[in-house]
């Protein structure tokens, strides 16, 4: 499978995430679209890792495993980010009784 299939798939997923962030007003859905963009980047990292592994297999059989370790760390950071972000959304819902992000367009009140 040539790598450009994976590139275009990941770019399409990323663009869907961008569109979701731009057009939705529910804070939870915006947050989920950010997760979707993170996953598109993860998929592309794994595809590039396997591409370089294919090229370097004769020289170094464990080459290009760094990308997969990076994906693991991205998942770690995403899990920490989600816990704090959802806490912020719950606090926002408690103050405004809504998850509409347009209520937060000013810092005062």
């Amino acid at each position, binding site marked *: 499978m040539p790598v450009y299939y994976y*590139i275009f798939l990941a770019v399409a997923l990323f663009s869907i995430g961008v569109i979701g962030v731009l057009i939705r007003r529910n804070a939870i859905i915006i947050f989920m679209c950010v997760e979707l963009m993170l996953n598109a980047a993860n998929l592309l990292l794994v595809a590039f890792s396997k591409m370089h592994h294919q090229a370097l297999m004769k020289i170094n059989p464990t080459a290009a495993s760094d990308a997969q370790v990076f994906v693991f760390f991205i998942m770690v950071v995403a899990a920490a980010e989600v816990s704090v972000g959802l806490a912020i959304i719950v606090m926002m819902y408690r103050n405004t009784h809504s998850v509409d992000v347009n209520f937060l367009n000013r810092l005062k009140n």
Partner: protein
Amino acid sequence: MSAIEIMFWFLSILALGAAVMVVASKSPVYSILFLILTFFAISGHYILLNAQFLAVVNVIVYAGAIMVLFLFVVMLMNLNAESEPHQKNKWLLYIGGISGGSLLLVIVAALKKTVATTQLVQMNNGEVGLIKNLGIKLFTDYVFPFEISSVLFLSAMIGAVVISKKEG
């Protein structure tokens, strides 16, 4: 068309369709369920690339922990299609769709003619994604970032507790 190509196209269409439904569905609970479907499709891609460790971690961490957290918050707030905030300005919808679509168009057009993109991806074999290789890598070269991430989790836990605590 080989079995790997059929699986690739099936998982790609599943991932893209579910991702579109995440953005398009009215009820937040349906959005979350479609996002879980997207994550399962991406895990299927990892299995197809023989990155078995990441496939398992993706299912456990994303489809298991993170999406349960999302579902829990949505059900705690009792959100449904009626309480969904609507975008009142139709032009903002169009502008968002057009700018996201043009982002896709620009990146695809920029990458279409590059030479490196015709390289092959190794499918369905190769030992780089197995747990043994990644475990050795993680506990030798990357042991310091691994320990730092435990501090990150501790601070995230404390932060979540402090933020969600009622003040006063």
